[in-house]
């Protein structure tokens, strides 16, 4: 390197420790801004949404197809065996089905009679695919490939299969961030379906490994709640629509105050193998 070039470069560089100081201050300002206000999220989300989301979509698709192909080969033999078995079962089931059809007809008529509606299926839902997961090992949030362009808004409920997955915490034009109910320090207000007792469901990193989540603050004075009871989102929750299935009670312990109970519940959603989710576009209207 010639001395001329070197001198020129030195003239323009700020010492590293000042750069570090400036960037540290920037970080702190960003933290304060994002903690107290909402100014940052719109521009940042738009930029990152258009820059990175398409690539994440592509890579996830590649990964899914790769894994899918490997599994396909592995399971082909099993599937053939199963096919034989299933054919036999099908005959039995189709017979059953006709009986059920009749029952269903009766049920709808009865529902009309009681003016009850299956609210669950009435919600306006949109399907979405998970395209990225939290990079660290501490939390379990993820990013889906639908955003405000598809009518998703912050606090939309996310379900998969028949159970609650979580809710949207942040939304960009073509993607949305979802926090799951099993993520550490996330609280969900739930209730026991059979008795209507309220409880708080709390995600915990420690229990995630066992595939269960904690609940607490259950007031059940008559000892009616037992193992296997259904837990759904409560009607007093301000973010979750009521009556979405969360899981089943696994253990019940009486707290040391002798008034409330706590324990663990088994979520209905298989969080480890989650690929596609449904987002309910209707928001809970809280006055």
């Amino acid at each position: 390197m010639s001395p001329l070039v070197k001198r020129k470069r030195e003239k323009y560089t700020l010492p590293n420790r000042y750069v570090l100081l400036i960037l540290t201050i920037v970080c702190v300002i960003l933290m304060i801004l994002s903690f107290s206000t909402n100014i940052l999220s719109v521009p940042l989300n738009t930029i990152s949404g258009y820059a990175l989301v398409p690539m994440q979509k592509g890579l996830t698709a590649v990964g899914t197809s790769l894994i899918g192909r490997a599994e396909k080969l592995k399971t082909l033999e099993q599937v053939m065996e199963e096919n034989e078995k299933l054919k036999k079962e099908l005959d039995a089931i189709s017979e059953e089905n006709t009986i059920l059809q009749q029952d269903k007809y009766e049920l709808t008529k009865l529902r009309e009679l009681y003016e009850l509606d299956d609210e669950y299926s009435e919600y306006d839902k949109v399907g979405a695919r998970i395209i990225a997961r939290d990079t660290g090992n501490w939390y379990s949030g993820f990013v889906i490939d639908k955003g405000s362009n598809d009518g998703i808004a912050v606090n939309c409920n996310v379900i998969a299969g028949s159970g609650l997955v979580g809710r949207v915490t942040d939304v960009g034009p073509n993607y949305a961030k979802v926090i799951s109910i099993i993520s550490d320090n996330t609280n969900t207000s739930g209730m026991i379906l059979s008795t209507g007792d309220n409880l708080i469901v709390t995600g915990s990193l420690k229990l995630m490994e066992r595939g269960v989540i904690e609940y607490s603050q259950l007031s059940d004075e008559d000892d009616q709640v037992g193992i296997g009871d259904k837990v759904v989102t409560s009607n007093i929750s301000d973010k979750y629509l009521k009556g979405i299935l969360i899981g089943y009670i696994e253990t019940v312990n009486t707290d040391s105050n002798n008034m409330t109970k706590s324990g663990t519940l088994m979520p209905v959603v298989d969080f480890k193998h989650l690929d596609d989710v449904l987002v309910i576009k209707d928001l809970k209207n809280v006055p």
Partner: protein
Amino acid sequence: MNFVSTALFMLISFLLQSTLLSRFTIGGIRPNLLLIVVATVGLLLGRRYGMVSGFIAGLFVDIFFGSIIGIYALLYMYVGYVNGICRKVLFPGDFKLPLVLIVGSDVLYCHFCYLIMFLLKGDFSYPYYLSKIIFPEVIYTTLVAILYFPLMKFVFDRIRKREEEAEETIA
């Protein structure tokens, strides 16, 4: 050239970590690819590159997965800076010390994560997190770093050689 390849390495690592790597977890734990890249950039290119790349990498993580923007940016930035300081003690051909430094960075990084996000909210079960989260992550990250560091070193060495040759021809 250094700038372009650093940016490419970061982009690829971030995308891999957030998409494909979640399918190659061991016991639900995935390696910290971004940390390897940031630490390596610091070790090979110095403090300036290390901290800027750390800042940007952390910012991406914050935007996509964090609730408060700036925490990961701060953490990764210091990882890059500290490794940049350590560049002075490295010998050119030595692979053991850089690996030790990368692993050390990951250990420190994990502890800061625990400190900021769990200890401060009153969660004192440190042994649990150490054995179930931090230790597996460090092991997995080490294994990946054994492959990743030489690859990055090779690329950056090639770039430096080419630039030196180009300068010689000009002179």
